[in-house]
Protein backbone atom coordinates (compact mmCIF):
# COMPACT_ATOMS: atom_id res chain seq x y z
CA UNK A 1 0.00 0.00 0.00
CA UNK A 2 1.21 3.42 -0.97
CA UNK A 3 1.39 6.31 1.52
CA UNK A 4 0.32 9.65 0.05
CA UNK A 5 1.14 12.79 1.93
CA UNK A 6 0.08 16.40 1.48
CA UNK A 7 2.28 19.43 0.87
CA UNK A 8 1.24 23.08 0.76
CA UNK A 9 4.75 24.36 0.04
CA UNK A 10 8.28 23.18 -0.75
CA UNK A 11 9.32 22.81 2.89
CA UNK A 12 6.34 20.57 3.57
CA UNK A 13 7.08 18.57 0.43
CA UNK A 14 10.63 17.94 1.61
CA UNK A 15 9.31 16.99 5.06
CA UNK A 16 6.95 14.45 3.50
CA UNK A 17 9.66 13.01 1.25
CA UNK A 18 12.23 12.86 4.03
CA UNK A 19 9.84 11.15 6.44
CA UNK A 20 8.78 8.32 4.21
CA UNK A 21 5.98 9.34 1.87
CA UNK A 22 5.71 7.19 -1.26
CA UNK A 23 3.91 9.99 -3.03
CA UNK A 24 3.36 13.66 -2.29
CA UNK A 25 0.37 15.53 -3.62
CA UNK A 26 0.38 19.25 -4.26
CA UNK A 27 -1.61 21.98 -6.02
CA UNK A 28 -0.88 25.20 -7.83
CA UNK A 29 -1.34 28.57 -6.17
CA UNK A 30 -4.71 29.49 -7.68
CA UNK A 31 -8.38 28.53 -7.96
CA UNK A 32 -7.63 25.34 -9.90
CA UNK A 33 -7.26 23.18 -6.81
CA UNK A 34 -9.72 22.46 -4.03
CA UNK A 35 -7.45 23.65 -1.19
CA UNK A 36 -6.99 27.24 -2.13
CA UNK A 37 -5.78 29.17 0.94
CA UNK A 38 -3.95 32.51 0.94
CA UNK A 39 -0.17 31.93 0.93
CA UNK A 40 -0.54 28.21 0.28
CA UNK A 41 0.41 25.97 -2.65
CA UNK A 42 3.01 26.04 -5.43
CA UNK A 43 4.04 28.32 -8.25
CA UNK A 44 5.00 26.42 -11.41
CA UNK A 45 8.66 26.97 -10.62
CA UNK A 46 8.33 25.72 -7.02
CA UNK A 47 6.38 22.71 -8.21
CA UNK A 48 9.14 21.89 -10.67
CA UNK A 49 11.72 22.00 -7.89
CA UNK A 50 9.45 19.85 -5.75
CA UNK A 51 9.13 17.22 -8.45
CA UNK A 52 12.89 17.23 -8.90
CA UNK A 53 13.48 16.80 -5.15
CA UNK A 54 10.96 13.98 -4.89
CA UNK A 55 12.00 12.13 -8.04
CA UNK A 56 15.67 12.18 -7.03
CA UNK A 57 14.57 10.26 -3.94
CA UNK A 58 12.26 7.85 -5.68
CA UNK A 59 9.08 9.58 -4.53
CA UNK A 60 6.18 10.38 -6.87
CA UNK A 61 4.29 13.67 -7.14
CA UNK A 62 0.60 14.02 -7.92
CA UNK A 63 -0.84 17.41 -8.79
CA UNK A 64 -4.42 18.20 -7.79
CA UNK A 65 -6.27 20.24 -10.40
CA UNK A 66 -9.53 19.35 -8.76
CA UNK A 67 -11.87 22.29 -8.60
CA UNK A 68 -14.38 22.62 -11.43
CA UNK A 69 -13.58 24.71 -14.51
CA UNK A 70 -15.73 27.83 -14.36
CA UNK A 71 -17.33 29.74 -17.23
CA UNK A 72 -14.64 31.82 -18.89
CA UNK A 73 -11.89 30.06 -16.94
CA UNK A 74 -10.78 27.33 -19.33
CA UNK A 75 -7.36 28.82 -20.09
CA UNK A 76 -6.40 28.89 -16.42
CA UNK A 77 -7.38 25.30 -15.70
CA UNK A 78 -5.81 24.07 -18.92
CA UNK A 79 -2.62 25.83 -17.93
CA UNK A 80 -2.53 23.94 -14.64
CA UNK A 81 -2.81 20.61 -16.46
CA UNK A 82 -0.15 21.64 -18.98
CA UNK A 83 2.19 22.78 -16.22
CA UNK A 84 1.73 19.55 -14.28
CA UNK A 85 2.62 17.61 -17.41
CA UNK A 86 5.63 19.79 -18.25
CA UNK A 87 7.21 19.58 -14.79
CA UNK A 88 7.01 15.78 -14.93
CA UNK A 89 4.27 15.12 -12.39
CA UNK A 90 3.36 11.44 -12.19
CA UNK A 91 -0.38 12.06 -12.22
CA UNK A 92 -3.01 14.75 -12.07
CA UNK A 93 -5.96 14.51 -9.71
CA UNK A 94 -8.99 15.80 -11.58
CA UNK A 95 -12.77 15.92 -11.11
CA UNK A 96 -13.98 18.05 -14.03
CA UNK A 97 -15.23 16.18 -17.13
CA UNK A 98 -13.84 18.74 -19.57
CA UNK A 99 -10.41 18.60 -17.97
CA UNK A 100 -10.41 14.81 -17.93
CA UNK A 101 -11.26 14.74 -21.63
CA UNK A 102 -8.56 17.31 -22.40
CA UNK A 103 -5.88 15.51 -20.39
CA UNK A 104 -6.69 12.16 -21.98
CA UNK A 105 -6.39 13.72 -25.42
CA UNK A 106 -3.40 16.05 -24.98
CA UNK A 107 -1.33 14.24 -22.34
CA UNK A 108 -2.20 10.56 -22.69
CA UNK A 109 0.96 9.53 -20.81
CA UNK A 110 0.04 11.62 -17.76
CA UNK A 111 -1.75 9.55 -15.10
CA UNK A 112 -5.36 10.54 -14.59
CA UNK A 113 -6.70 10.07 -11.08
CA UNK A 114 -10.27 10.87 -10.20
CA UNK A 115 -10.43 13.42 -7.39
CA UNK A 116 -12.48 12.90 -4.27
CA UNK A 117 -14.36 15.99 -5.45
CA UNK A 118 -16.02 13.84 -8.11
CA UNK A 119 -17.63 11.75 -5.37
CA UNK A 120 -17.60 8.50 -7.34
CA UNK A 121 -18.91 5.73 -5.08
CA UNK A 122 -19.85 2.76 -7.25
CA UNK A 123 -18.14 0.39 -9.71
CA UNK A 124 -20.49 1.72 -12.40
CA UNK A 125 -19.42 5.33 -11.82
CA UNK A 126 -15.74 4.38 -11.70
CA UNK A 127 -16.11 2.43 -14.91
CA UNK A 128 -17.62 5.45 -16.66
CA UNK A 129 -14.51 7.50 -15.88
CA UNK A 130 -12.24 4.62 -16.85
CA UNK A 131 -13.79 3.86 -20.21
CA UNK A 132 -14.38 7.48 -21.27
CA UNK A 133 -11.25 9.16 -19.93
CA UNK A 134 -8.79 6.42 -19.06
CA UNK A 135 -8.92 7.11 -15.34
CA UNK A 136 -6.74 4.54 -13.57
CA UNK A 137 -7.24 5.52 -9.97
CA UNK A 138 -9.96 7.14 -7.86
CA UNK A 139 -9.89 8.80 -4.48
CA UNK A 140 -12.98 7.65 -2.61
CA UNK A 141 -15.25 10.19 -0.95
CA UNK A 142 -15.63 9.90 2.77
CA UNK A 143 -19.13 8.45 2.60
CA UNK A 144 -18.52 4.71 2.37
CA UNK A 145 -18.39 2.23 5.26
CA UNK A 146 -15.41 -0.10 5.50
CA UNK A 147 -17.65 -2.93 4.27
CA UNK A 148 -18.66 -0.84 1.28
CA UNK A 149 -15.03 0.07 0.56
CA UNK A 150 -14.09 -3.62 0.65
CA UNK A 151 -16.95 -4.57 -1.64
CA UNK A 152 -16.15 -1.79 -4.09
CA UNK A 153 -12.50 -2.81 -4.25
CA UNK A 154 -13.61 -6.28 -5.32
CA UNK A 155 -15.81 -4.94 -8.11
CA UNK A 156 -13.64 -2.43 -9.95
CA UNK A 157 -10.47 -2.40 -12.03
CA UNK A 158 -9.78 1.17 -11.03
CA UNK A 159 -7.17 1.51 -8.28
CA UNK A 160 -8.63 2.92 -5.07
CA UNK A 161 -7.14 5.54 -2.81
CA UNK A 162 -8.77 6.24 0.56
CA UNK A 163 -8.37 8.89 3.21
CA UNK A 164 -6.65 7.57 6.33
CA UNK A 165 -6.06 10.59 8.50
CA UNK A 166 -6.85 14.27 8.85
CA UNK A 167 -9.73 16.68 8.75
CA UNK A 168 -13.05 15.21 7.93
CA UNK A 169 -15.57 16.53 5.47
CA UNK A 170 -18.93 15.60 6.89
CA UNK A 171 -20.58 16.13 3.53
CA UNK A 172 -19.79 14.19 0.37
CA UNK A 173 -16.95 16.03 -1.32
CA UNK A 174 -17.94 17.96 -4.40
CA UNK A 175 -21.56 17.77 -3.27
CA UNK A 176 -21.48 20.57 -0.75
CA UNK A 177 -22.55 24.14 -1.44
CA UNK A 178 -22.82 25.26 2.20
CA UNK A 179 -19.86 27.61 1.80
CA UNK A 180 -21.26 29.38 -1.23
CA UNK A 181 -24.68 29.62 0.38
CA UNK A 182 -23.11 31.89 3.01
CA UNK A 183 -20.34 33.52 0.96
CA UNK A 184 -20.83 32.95 -2.78
CA UNK A 185 -17.64 30.83 -2.95
CA UNK A 186 -17.34 27.05 -2.65
CA UNK A 187 -14.79 24.27 -3.17
CA UNK A 188 -16.36 23.49 -6.55
CA UNK A 189 -16.15 27.04 -7.89
CA UNK A 190 -12.97 28.56 -6.46
CA UNK A 191 -11.46 25.71 -4.45
CA UNK A 192 -12.28 27.36 -1.15
CA UNK A 193 -14.49 26.27 1.72
CA UNK A 194 -15.20 29.04 4.23
CA UNK A 195 -12.94 31.58 2.47
CA UNK A 196 -10.89 33.61 4.97
CA UNK A 197 -12.21 36.96 3.75
CA UNK A 198 -15.73 35.94 4.76
CA UNK A 199 -14.80 34.86 8.31
CA UNK A 200 -15.38 37.40 11.05
CA UNK A 201 -14.49 36.92 14.73
CA UNK A 202 -16.01 39.16 17.35
CA UNK A 203 -15.63 39.37 21.14
CA UNK A 204 -19.02 39.91 22.69
CA UNK A 205 -20.44 39.65 26.22
CA UNK A 206 -22.07 36.34 25.20
CA UNK A 207 -18.72 34.93 24.08
CA UNK A 208 -16.42 34.86 21.08
CA UNK A 209 -18.63 34.84 18.01
CA UNK A 210 -17.68 33.68 14.56
CA UNK A 211 -19.65 34.63 11.47
CA UNK A 212 -19.35 33.44 7.92
CA UNK A 213 -20.72 35.77 5.28
CA UNK A 214 -22.53 37.58 8.09
CA UNK A 215 -24.23 34.45 9.46
CA UNK A 216 -23.48 33.39 13.03
CA UNK A 217 -22.10 29.86 12.87
CA UNK A 218 -20.81 29.48 16.43
CA UNK A 219 -20.09 31.17 19.74
CA UNK A 220 -17.34 30.05 22.12
CA UNK A 221 -16.80 30.44 25.85
CA UNK A 222 -13.48 32.14 26.82
CA UNK A 223 -11.42 28.97 27.26
CA UNK A 224 -13.24 26.87 24.68
CA UNK A 225 -11.05 25.70 21.77
CA UNK A 226 -12.19 26.88 18.35
CA UNK A 227 -11.08 25.36 15.07
CA UNK A 228 -11.28 26.86 11.60
CA UNK A 229 -14.93 27.79 11.22
CA UNK A 230 -16.95 25.85 8.69
CA UNK A 231 -20.72 25.67 8.54
CA UNK A 232 -20.81 21.89 9.01
CA UNK A 233 -18.99 22.11 12.35
CA UNK A 234 -20.98 25.00 13.84
CA UNK A 235 -23.57 24.90 16.61
CA UNK A 236 -27.18 25.70 15.89
CA UNK A 237 -30.62 25.37 17.34
CA UNK A 238 -32.64 22.43 16.09
CA UNK A 239 -36.11 21.96 17.57
CA UNK A 240 -35.19 23.93 20.66
CA UNK A 241 -31.91 22.13 21.27
CA UNK A 242 -28.52 23.75 20.81
CA UNK A 243 -26.25 21.25 19.10
CA UNK A 244 -23.60 20.49 16.55
CA UNK A 245 -26.37 19.76 14.07
CA UNK A 246 -23.98 18.09 11.60
CA UNK A 247 -20.74 17.03 13.27
CA UNK A 248 -18.64 17.81 16.30
CA UNK A 249 -15.13 18.98 15.41
CA UNK A 250 -13.14 15.77 15.08
CA UNK A 251 -10.58 14.13 12.81
CA UNK A 252 -10.54 10.97 10.79
CA UNK A 253 -8.07 8.38 12.12
CA UNK A 254 -8.07 4.89 10.64
CA UNK A 255 -4.86 3.18 11.76
CA UNK A 256 -6.85 0.25 13.12
CA UNK A 257 -8.41 -0.38 9.70
CA UNK A 258 -5.08 -0.74 7.89
CA UNK A 259 -5.12 -4.56 7.72
CA UNK A 260 -8.61 -4.59 6.26
CA UNK A 261 -7.75 -1.92 3.73
CA UNK A 262 -4.65 -3.83 2.69
CA UNK A 263 -6.48 -7.13 2.40
CA UNK A 264 -9.20 -5.47 0.34
CA UNK A 265 -6.55 -4.40 -2.16
CA UNK A 266 -6.77 -0.67 -1.52
CA UNK A 267 -3.89 0.83 -3.43
CA UNK A 268 -3.11 3.91 -1.41
CA UNK A 269 -3.81 5.60 1.90
CA UNK A 270 -3.97 9.35 1.82
CA UNK A 271 -3.20 11.82 4.57
CA UNK A 272 -5.30 15.01 4.41
CA UNK A 273 -3.78 18.42 5.10
CA UNK A 274 -2.18 20.52 2.36
CA UNK A 275 -3.04 23.50 4.57
CA UNK A 276 -0.98 22.10 7.49
CA UNK A 277 2.51 23.17 8.57
CA UNK A 278 5.67 21.39 7.35
CA UNK A 279 6.27 20.21 10.94
CA UNK A 280 2.85 18.59 11.04
CA UNK A 281 3.33 16.96 7.66
CA UNK A 282 6.73 15.59 8.69
CA UNK A 283 5.54 14.13 11.99
CA UNK A 284 2.31 12.65 10.68
CA UNK A 285 4.12 11.18 7.67
CA UNK A 286 6.69 9.54 9.93
CA UNK A 287 4.03 7.98 12.17
CA UNK A 288 2.09 6.61 9.20
CA UNK A 289 5.25 5.30 7.55
CA UNK A 290 5.96 3.32 10.70
CA UNK A 291 2.39 2.10 11.04
CA UNK A 292 2.47 0.82 7.48
CA UNK A 293 5.97 -0.67 7.69
CA UNK A 294 5.09 -2.57 10.86
CA UNK A 295 1.79 -3.79 9.50
CA UNK A 296 2.97 -7.20 8.18
CA UNK A 297 4.73 -8.11 11.43
CA UNK A 298 1.88 -6.80 13.57
CA UNK A 299 -0.63 -8.79 11.54
CA UNK A 300 1.44 -11.96 11.77
CA UNK A 301 1.56 -11.70 15.56
CA UNK A 302 -1.01 -13.55 17.67
CA UNK A 303 -4.39 -12.00 18.32
CA UNK A 304 -6.28 -9.11 16.81
CA UNK A 305 -4.37 -6.34 15.13
CA UNK A 306 -4.05 -3.14 17.10
CA UNK A 307 -1.86 -0.26 16.01
CA UNK A 308 0.88 0.89 18.37
CA UNK A 309 -0.96 2.85 21.12
CA UNK A 310 1.85 5.42 21.39
CA UNK A 311 1.52 6.25 17.73
CA UNK A 312 -2.23 6.41 17.96
CA UNK A 313 -2.08 8.86 20.84
CA UNK A 314 0.52 10.89 18.97
CA UNK A 315 -1.90 11.14 16.05
CA UNK A 316 -4.67 12.15 18.41
CA UNK A 317 -2.60 15.09 19.60
CA UNK A 318 -2.59 16.38 16.02
CA UNK A 319 -6.34 16.07 15.65
CA UNK A 320 -9.02 18.68 15.56
CA UNK A 321 -10.71 18.92 18.96
CA UNK A 322 -8.15 16.28 20.04
CA UNK A 323 -10.70 13.65 19.17
CA UNK A 324 -10.75 11.16 16.35
CA UNK A 325 -13.34 9.06 14.63
CA UNK A 326 -13.54 6.28 12.10
CA UNK A 327 -16.12 8.52 10.47
CA UNK A 328 -18.05 6.98 7.62
CA UNK A 329 -16.04 3.75 7.81
CA UNK A 330 -17.95 2.62 10.90
CA UNK A 331 -21.54 1.42 10.96
CA UNK A 332 -22.68 4.14 13.35
CA UNK A 333 -22.57 6.65 10.53
CA UNK A 334 -24.42 4.47 8.09
Amino acid at each position, binding site marked *: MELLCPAGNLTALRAAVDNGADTVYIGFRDVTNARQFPGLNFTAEQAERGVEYAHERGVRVHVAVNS*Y*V*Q*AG*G*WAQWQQSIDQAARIGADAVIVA*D*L*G*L*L*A*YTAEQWPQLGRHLSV*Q*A*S*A*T*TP*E*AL*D*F*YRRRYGVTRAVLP*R*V*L*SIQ*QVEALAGETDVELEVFGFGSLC*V*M*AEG*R*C*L*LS*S*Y*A*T*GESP*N*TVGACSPAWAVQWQERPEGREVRL*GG*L*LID*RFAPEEPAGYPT*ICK*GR*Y*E*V*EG*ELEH*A*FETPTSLETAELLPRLRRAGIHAVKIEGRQRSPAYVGKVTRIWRQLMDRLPAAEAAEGDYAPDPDQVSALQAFSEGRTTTLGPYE*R*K*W*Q
Partner: protein
Amino acid sequence: MSEGAKAMKIAIGPILYHWPAAEIRRFYDSLRGRVDTFYLGETVCSRRREMRAEDWIGLGRELAEEGHEVVLSTLSLVVARSEAAVVRRLCDNGELRVEANDYTAVSELEARGLPFVAGPTLNIYSGRALRAIQRAGAVRWVPPIEMPGASLRGVLAELAELGGDPMETEVFAYGRQPLAFSARCFTARHYDRPKDDCGLVCAHHPEGMPVTTRAGERFLAINGIQTQSWCCANLIPAIPQMQEMGLSAVRLSPRPGAMDEVVAAFRAAIDGAPVTLEEPPLEQQCDGYWWGDAGYKRKALETGTVE
Protein backbone atom coordinates in the same frame (compact mmCIF):
# COMPACT_ATOMS: atom_id res chain seq x y z
CA MET B 1 -50.24 24.76 -21.17
CA SER B 2 -48.36 27.55 -22.91
CA GLU B 3 -48.54 27.94 -26.64
CA GLY B 4 -45.58 28.25 -28.96
CA ALA B 5 -42.34 26.33 -29.25
CA LYS B 6 -40.33 28.96 -27.44
CA ALA B 7 -42.42 29.35 -24.30
CA MET B 8 -40.48 28.27 -21.26
CA LYS B 9 -41.84 25.10 -19.75
CA ILE B 10 -42.74 24.45 -16.16
CA ALA B 11 -41.25 21.34 -14.63
CA ILE B 12 -42.01 19.95 -11.19
CA GLY B 13 -38.80 18.60 -9.67
CA PRO B 14 -38.69 15.36 -7.68
CA ILE B 15 -40.25 15.43 -4.20
CA LEU B 16 -37.29 15.79 -1.86
CA TYR B 17 -39.11 14.91 1.37
CA HIS B 18 -40.50 11.80 2.96
CA TRP B 19 -44.23 12.04 2.33
CA PRO B 20 -46.76 9.22 2.64
CA ALA B 21 -47.73 7.56 -0.64
CA ALA B 22 -51.28 8.93 -0.45
CA GLU B 23 -49.90 12.43 -0.03
CA ILE B 24 -47.58 11.94 -3.00
CA ARG B 25 -50.51 10.90 -5.19
CA ARG B 26 -52.64 13.80 -3.96
CA PHE B 27 -49.77 16.13 -4.79
CA TYR B 28 -49.51 14.95 -8.39
CA ASP B 29 -53.30 14.85 -8.80
CA SER B 30 -53.45 18.51 -7.83
CA LEU B 31 -51.04 19.47 -10.61
CA ARG B 32 -52.29 17.29 -13.45
CA GLY B 33 -52.79 19.25 -16.63
CA ARG B 34 -51.22 22.37 -15.15
CA VAL B 35 -47.52 21.77 -15.78
CA ASP B 36 -45.42 20.43 -18.67
CA THR B 37 -43.01 18.04 -16.99
CA PHE B 38 -42.95 15.86 -13.90
CA TYR B 39 -39.71 14.48 -12.43
CA LEU B 40 -40.58 11.43 -10.35
CA GLY B 41 -38.56 9.34 -7.95
CA GLU B 42 -36.68 9.23 -4.66
CA THR B 43 -33.49 11.26 -4.96
CA VAL B 44 -32.50 11.61 -1.31
CA CYS B 45 -32.73 8.39 0.72
CA SER B 46 -33.23 4.78 -0.35
CA ARG B 47 -34.73 3.88 3.04
CA ARG B 48 -37.85 5.77 2.13
CA ARG B 49 -40.03 3.14 0.53
CA GLU B 50 -43.49 4.65 0.33
CA MET B 51 -43.08 4.42 -3.42
CA ARG B 52 -40.98 1.66 -4.97
CA ALA B 53 -39.32 1.96 -8.36
CA GLU B 54 -42.30 0.10 -9.88
CA ASP B 55 -44.74 2.55 -8.30
CA TRP B 56 -42.87 5.54 -9.70
CA ILE B 57 -42.72 3.96 -13.14
CA GLY B 58 -46.45 3.16 -12.96
CA LEU B 59 -47.35 6.69 -11.91
CA GLY B 60 -45.04 8.01 -14.61
CA ARG B 61 -46.81 6.02 -17.31
CA GLU B 62 -50.19 7.35 -16.14
CA LEU B 63 -49.01 10.94 -16.23
CA ALA B 64 -47.29 10.44 -19.58
CA GLU B 65 -50.46 8.99 -21.11
CA GLU B 66 -52.24 12.17 -20.09
CA GLY B 67 -49.78 14.17 -22.15
CA HIS B 68 -47.21 15.25 -19.59
CA GLU B 69 -43.54 14.77 -20.14
CA VAL B 70 -42.31 12.43 -17.40
CA VAL B 71 -38.71 11.95 -16.30
CA LEU B 72 -37.55 9.44 -13.68
CA SER B 73 -35.02 10.92 -11.25
CA THR B 74 -32.31 8.75 -9.72
CA LEU B 75 -30.77 8.79 -6.26
CA SER B 76 -28.17 11.54 -5.73
CA LEU B 77 -25.72 9.59 -3.59
CA VAL B 78 -25.48 5.88 -4.43
CA VAL B 79 -23.43 3.81 -1.98
CA ALA B 80 -25.13 0.41 -1.54
CA ARG B 81 -25.45 -2.28 -4.20
CA SER B 82 -29.21 -2.32 -3.64
CA GLU B 83 -29.26 1.38 -4.51
CA ALA B 84 -27.30 0.85 -7.71
CA ALA B 85 -29.83 -1.87 -8.59
CA VAL B 86 -32.69 0.62 -8.29
CA VAL B 87 -30.80 3.06 -10.51
CA ARG B 88 -30.43 0.30 -13.09
CA ARG B 89 -34.13 -0.60 -12.84
CA LEU B 90 -35.09 3.01 -13.57
CA CYS B 91 -32.68 3.20 -16.51
CA ASP B 92 -34.20 -0.02 -17.88
CA ASN B 93 -37.82 1.16 -17.70
CA GLY B 94 -37.90 1.10 -21.49
CA GLU B 95 -40.06 4.13 -22.05
CA LEU B 96 -39.57 7.16 -19.79
CA ARG B 97 -36.54 9.42 -19.88
CA VAL B 98 -34.22 9.40 -16.88
CA GLU B 99 -32.58 12.22 -14.94
CA ALA B 100 -29.10 11.12 -13.83
CA ASN B 101 -28.21 12.57 -10.45
CA ASP B 102 -24.90 10.78 -10.02
CA TYR B 103 -22.38 9.06 -12.29
CA THR B 104 -23.73 5.58 -11.54
CA ALA B 105 -26.77 6.59 -13.55
CA VAL B 106 -24.70 8.40 -16.18
CA SER B 107 -22.64 5.24 -16.62
CA GLU B 108 -25.72 3.03 -17.03
CA LEU B 109 -27.39 5.40 -19.49
CA GLU B 110 -24.28 6.04 -21.54
CA ALA B 111 -23.62 2.31 -21.80
CA ARG B 112 -27.17 1.84 -23.17
CA GLY B 113 -26.90 4.78 -25.55
CA LEU B 114 -29.98 6.36 -23.98
CA PRO B 115 -30.54 10.12 -24.06
CA PHE B 116 -30.86 11.53 -20.53
CA VAL B 117 -31.25 14.62 -18.39
CA ALA B 118 -28.11 15.65 -16.50
CA GLY B 119 -29.27 16.55 -12.98
CA PRO B 120 -28.03 19.46 -10.85
CA THR B 121 -25.52 17.39 -8.85
CA LEU B 122 -23.32 16.27 -11.77
CA ASN B 123 -21.09 19.33 -11.34
CA ILE B 124 -21.21 20.76 -14.85
CA TYR B 125 -19.76 24.25 -14.54
CA SER B 126 -18.26 24.99 -17.97
CA GLY B 127 -18.90 24.62 -21.70
CA ARG B 128 -16.28 21.88 -21.95
CA ALA B 129 -17.90 19.85 -19.19
CA LEU B 130 -21.31 20.39 -20.74
CA ARG B 131 -19.95 19.22 -24.09
CA ALA B 132 -18.52 16.12 -22.38
CA ILE B 133 -21.81 15.18 -20.73
CA GLN B 134 -23.60 15.87 -24.01
CA ARG B 135 -21.26 13.42 -25.72
CA ALA B 136 -22.20 10.88 -23.06
CA GLY B 137 -25.85 11.27 -24.02
CA ALA B 138 -27.29 14.23 -22.10
CA VAL B 139 -29.96 16.13 -24.04
CA ARG B 140 -30.99 18.44 -21.20
CA TRP B 141 -29.23 19.69 -18.11
CA VAL B 142 -29.99 21.37 -14.83
CA PRO B 143 -27.06 23.62 -13.89
CA PRO B 144 -25.61 23.41 -10.36
CA ILE B 145 -27.80 25.24 -7.83
CA GLU B 146 -24.97 27.69 -7.08
CA MET B 147 -24.39 28.78 -10.70
CA PRO B 148 -25.06 32.48 -11.32
CA GLY B 149 -27.16 33.48 -14.34
CA ALA B 150 -24.22 35.32 -15.88
CA SER B 151 -22.04 32.20 -15.64
CA LEU B 152 -24.80 30.11 -17.18
CA ARG B 153 -24.87 32.50 -20.12
CA GLY B 154 -21.11 32.02 -20.45
CA VAL B 155 -21.35 28.23 -20.31
CA LEU B 156 -23.96 28.16 -23.06
CA ALA B 157 -21.83 30.46 -25.24
CA GLU B 158 -18.84 28.16 -24.69
CA LEU B 159 -20.89 25.14 -25.70
CA ALA B 160 -21.86 26.89 -28.94
CA GLU B 161 -18.22 27.81 -29.65
CA LEU B 162 -17.20 24.18 -29.14
CA GLY B 163 -19.69 23.16 -31.80
CA GLY B 164 -21.99 21.36 -29.39
CA ASP B 165 -25.65 20.98 -30.27
CA PRO B 166 -27.88 23.39 -28.39
CA MET B 167 -28.84 21.81 -25.10
CA GLU B 168 -32.12 22.20 -23.26
CA THR B 169 -31.42 24.07 -20.03
CA GLU B 170 -33.69 23.87 -17.00
CA VAL B 171 -33.04 26.13 -14.02
CA PHE B 172 -33.91 25.37 -10.41
CA ALA B 173 -36.17 28.37 -9.93
CA TYR B 174 -38.29 27.68 -6.88
CA GLY B 175 -38.06 25.82 -3.59
CA ARG B 176 -35.65 25.09 -0.78
CA GLN B 177 -32.30 24.51 -2.44
CA PRO B 178 -30.46 21.21 -1.94
CA LEU B 179 -27.01 22.28 -0.72
CA ALA B 180 -25.22 19.17 0.54
CA PHE B 181 -25.37 15.39 0.76
CA SER B 182 -23.72 13.23 3.42
CA ALA B 183 -23.21 9.61 4.44
CA ARG B 184 -24.86 10.64 7.67
CA CYS B 185 -28.53 11.14 8.24
CA PHE B 186 -28.76 14.33 10.26
CA THR B 187 -32.42 13.83 11.03
CA ALA B 188 -31.69 10.42 12.57
CA ARG B 189 -28.67 11.90 14.34
CA HIS B 190 -30.83 14.63 15.88
CA TYR B 191 -33.22 11.97 17.18
CA ASP B 192 -30.21 9.99 18.41
CA ARG B 193 -31.08 7.05 16.21
CA PRO B 194 -28.68 4.97 14.10
CA LYS B 195 -29.16 5.46 10.39
CA ASP B 196 -29.89 1.79 9.76
CA ASP B 197 -32.64 1.83 12.40
CA CYS B 198 -33.88 5.36 11.83
CA GLY B 199 -37.59 4.70 12.24
CA LEU B 200 -38.02 7.03 9.25
CA VAL B 201 -38.20 9.99 11.60
CA CYS B 202 -37.86 12.32 8.62
CA ALA B 203 -41.55 11.59 7.97
CA HIS B 204 -42.30 13.99 10.84
CA HIS B 205 -40.78 16.81 8.82
CA PRO B 206 -42.63 17.20 5.51
CA GLU B 207 -40.48 20.21 4.66
CA GLY B 208 -37.31 19.36 6.59
CA MET B 209 -36.20 20.36 10.08
CA PRO B 210 -35.19 24.02 10.49
CA VAL B 211 -31.67 24.86 11.65
CA THR B 212 -31.45 28.25 13.35
CA THR B 213 -28.29 30.18 14.16
CA ARG B 214 -27.58 31.25 17.73
CA ALA B 215 -28.57 34.75 16.66
CA GLY B 216 -32.03 33.39 15.86
CA GLU B 217 -31.61 33.56 12.06
CA ARG B 218 -33.33 30.78 10.14
CA PHE B 219 -30.49 29.23 8.16
CA LEU B 220 -30.77 25.67 6.86
CA ALA B 221 -33.20 22.76 6.74
CA ILE B 222 -32.18 19.20 7.49
CA ASN B 223 -33.81 16.62 5.24
CA GLY B 224 -32.22 13.29 6.11
CA ILE B 225 -28.82 13.02 4.45
CA GLN B 226 -29.56 16.22 2.54
CA THR B 227 -29.05 19.74 3.82
CA GLN B 228 -31.18 22.42 2.22
CA SER B 229 -31.38 26.17 2.36
CA TRP B 230 -34.05 27.19 4.81
CA CYS B 231 -35.07 30.02 2.53
CA CYS B 232 -37.03 29.24 -0.57
CA ALA B 233 -35.52 30.19 -3.92
CA ASN B 234 -37.80 32.30 -6.09
CA LEU B 235 -36.42 33.35 -9.47
CA ILE B 236 -39.57 34.94 -10.87
CA PRO B 237 -37.80 38.30 -11.27
CA ALA B 238 -35.16 36.57 -13.44
CA ILE B 239 -37.64 35.06 -15.90
CA PRO B 240 -37.33 37.79 -18.59
CA GLN B 241 -33.57 37.23 -18.51
CA MET B 242 -33.99 33.45 -18.75
CA GLN B 243 -36.31 33.85 -21.72
CA GLU B 244 -33.85 36.14 -23.43
CA MET B 245 -31.12 33.52 -22.86
CA GLY B 246 -33.32 30.90 -24.50
CA LEU B 247 -33.59 28.62 -21.46
CA SER B 248 -36.12 25.85 -21.91
CA ALA B 249 -37.70 25.35 -18.49
CA VAL B 250 -37.95 26.36 -14.87
CA ARG B 251 -37.86 23.68 -12.19
CA LEU B 252 -40.20 24.15 -9.26
CA SER B 253 -39.28 22.01 -6.29
CA PRO B 254 -42.26 20.53 -4.44
CA ARG B 255 -43.27 21.98 -1.09
CA PRO B 256 -46.20 20.88 1.03
CA GLY B 257 -49.25 22.90 0.02
CA ALA B 258 -49.68 25.98 -2.17
CA MET B 259 -47.92 24.57 -5.22
CA ASP B 260 -50.91 25.42 -7.42
CA GLU B 261 -50.44 29.07 -6.49
CA VAL B 262 -46.72 28.81 -7.24
CA VAL B 263 -47.34 27.21 -10.62
CA ALA B 264 -49.89 29.89 -11.51
CA ALA B 265 -47.44 32.65 -10.59
CA PHE B 266 -44.65 31.18 -12.72
CA ARG B 267 -47.05 30.61 -15.62
CA ALA B 268 -48.16 34.24 -15.44
CA ALA B 269 -44.55 35.45 -15.27
CA ILE B 270 -43.62 33.35 -18.31
CA ASP B 271 -46.59 34.87 -20.13
CA GLY B 272 -45.19 38.31 -19.35
CA ALA B 273 -47.58 39.40 -16.61
CA PRO B 274 -46.20 41.38 -13.67
CA VAL B 275 -46.43 39.05 -10.72
CA THR B 276 -45.25 38.78 -7.15
CA LEU B 277 -45.30 35.51 -5.26
CA GLU B 278 -45.64 35.60 -1.50
CA GLU B 279 -45.66 31.88 -0.90
CA PRO B 280 -43.73 31.65 1.37
CA PRO B 281 -43.59 35.30 2.59
CA LEU B 282 -40.85 37.41 1.00
CA GLU B 283 -38.60 37.34 4.08
CA GLN B 284 -38.37 33.56 3.67
CA GLN B 285 -37.27 33.78 0.02
CA CYS B 286 -33.84 34.13 -1.56
CA ASP B 287 -32.27 34.54 -5.01
CA GLY B 288 -28.62 35.31 -4.23
CA TYR B 289 -27.09 32.51 -6.29
CA TRP B 290 -28.66 33.59 -9.57
CA TRP B 291 -27.31 37.13 -9.18
CA GLY B 292 -23.78 35.96 -8.32
CA ASP B 293 -23.99 36.51 -4.57
CA ALA B 294 -24.20 34.34 -1.47
CA GLY B 295 -27.10 31.96 -1.90
CA TYR B 296 -29.06 33.18 1.09
CA LYS B 297 -29.23 36.80 -0.08
CA ARG B 298 -32.26 38.54 -1.53
CA LYS B 299 -31.32 40.56 -4.61
CA ALA B 300 -33.97 41.17 -7.27
CA LEU B 301 -36.62 39.91 -4.85
CA GLU B 302 -35.90 42.99 -2.77
CA THR B 303 -35.26 45.60 -5.42
CA GLY B 304 -37.27 44.36 -8.38
CA THR B 305 -34.23 44.48 -10.66
CA VAL B 306 -30.51 43.85 -10.46
CA GLU B 307 -27.61 45.00 -12.67
